[in-house]
C-alpha cells in the first residue's frame, strides 16, 4: 500500500550516475546507477521462480550511468542504463527499501 514513506515527491538526477529521491515523509534517498543496475528486479537479472540473483552489484562497473529515467504509470521508475539494459521496473516500495542512508541502514 502506498504510504508517505513510499511516495516520491521529486526525483532529481544529481550526476550522470546518481539520483536523489525526495519522499513525502521528508526522507531523502540517494541511489547510484551501478547499485540499482546490480539489483535490477527484472526476470533476466533475478530468477523468476526462486528470486535468486543472477546479476549482482559486483558485476557492474562503477562507471555505469543513467541514460534515461521515466515514470511507470504512478507506481514505479524505469531506467535505461549505459550498458543498454533497461527491462527493470523499480516500484517506489523497492526504491525506498534499497535506501542505504545511515538511518535506514541501521
Amino acid at each position, binding site marked *: *500500500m*502506498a504510504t508517505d514513506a513510499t*511516495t*516520491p*515527491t*521529486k*526525483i*532529481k*538526477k544529481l550526476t550522470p550516475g546518481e*539520483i536523489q529521491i525526495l519522499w513525502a515523509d521528508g526522507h531523502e534517498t540517494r541511489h547510484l546507477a551501478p547499485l540499482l543496475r546490480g539489483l535490477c528486479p527484472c526476470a533476466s537479472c533475478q530468477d523468476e521462480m526462486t528470486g535468486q540473483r543472477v546479476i549482482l552489484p559486483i558485476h557492474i562497473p562503477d562507471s555505469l550511468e*543513467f541514460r534515461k*529515467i*521515466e*515514470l*511507470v*504509470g*504512478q*507506481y*514505479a521508475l524505469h531506467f535505461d542504463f549505459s550498458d543498454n539494459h533497461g527491462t527493470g*521496473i523499480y516500484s*517506489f516500495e523497492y526504491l525506498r527499501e534499497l535506501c542505504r542512508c545511515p538511518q535506514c541502514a541501521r
Partner: protein
Amino acid sequence: MAIWNREKDGPTEDQVLNVLKRVQDPDLHKDIVTLGFIRNLKVTDGNVAFDMNLTTPACPVKDQMRDEAVALVKGLSGVQNVDVKMTAEVRQTPQMDRTALKNVKNIVAVGSGKGGVGKSTVAVNIAASLVLDGAVVGLLDGDIYGPTMPIMLGITEAPKSINNRMIPQESAGLRFMSMGLLVKADQPLIWRGPMAHRALQQCLFDVEWGNLDYLIVDLPPGTGDIHLTLAQQVPLTGAVIVSTPQDVGLQISMKTLRMFQQTRVPILGIVENMSYYICPHCNSRDHIFGEGGAKRTAAALDIPFLGEVPLDVAIRQQSDAGAPIVVARPESESAKNLREISRRVAAQVSIRSYATLPELDVE
C-alpha cells in the same frame, strides 16, 4: 443619503464573494470561491451576475450549489437580481509526456474480476451519460479478444486513417475505438500477450482522440496483460470496479481492486450491476443475486459506492440494438440510475485530478 439611493448602490464585489465563500463543494471540501469557481463577477447597482465554473459538467450537486449561492447573494441588502451562468471546465490529471494523449484530460478504467458482470454495458452508459451532461468523451474497448463496443454502439465499420493515425468512430455523441472495428465479427484473435499489449498501445497512442474531457477504457475481465499495459503506460485518473451483488463476484472483483492498488491506480468506486430484477409484467423487484453486497464491501474497504443498476431487459435490448439505454430510454429507472452513477464518477475524477505525480528533474 436617501433610502432609494442606498438600495441602488447594492453590495460590493467583495461582499458578494464573502457570502459565496459559505458555499462548500461537498466533494472537494473547499468553498467555491477558494476553488476559483466564480468567474466574471459583475455587480451593477442591485444586479449581481457571475459564472460558476465547475470541474465537471456532470457535477452531481450542481443545482444544489447554484441554489445555495443564489439564496445567499439574494440575502445581501440591496440585491434585486442574481444571474448565475453554470459552466464547466474539466481539470486535467497530471500526465506524463505522451504526445498523442496530451489533450486527454482524464483516463478512467472500468474493470471487474470476472466476465459477464456487465462491465461494458456500464462503461458505455457512463460514457454516454457524460456526453449527455455536456462533456467530450472517448471510449476505448480494451477487450482485445472479445470486443463488444461495436455491437453496443451500432457501428462496425473500420475507422478511417489519416497520416497513419486512426480516426475514432462516433456514436451516441462519443468517440470510440475497438478491436472489433478492425477485425471481422466472426474472426477470432488468437494472439499471445505481447500482441495484445501492442494492440492496446496502438488503440491508445495511434488514434486521433483529439481533445477529451474523459477517456473511458473498458477493460477485459481479470488481471492480465491489458491491465498492466494500461497501468504502466498512462497515468490513470482512476478505476471503476463493476461487480454483481453476489459474493463470488465480489471476491473476484477484490483481485482487480488489489491489482489497481498495487500499481497505485486510485479506485473511484464500485458499481453494483444486476442489483435487482424488475419484472416487466408486474414491476416487482427481486434481489436475485442477494442484496447490498457491493455496498457493504465498499463500506468495509472505505471506497465510494457509486450506485446500483438493475437487471433490466431494456438494458440488454438497447445494448443489442446499438444504443445505450441512457440515450434510448432516458426516462427508465435504469437510465436514471446510470446517469447518477456517471455523475458520481465525474465527481470522483474531479477529486483525483488534484493529485500530483512526482516531479522529475532528470535531464
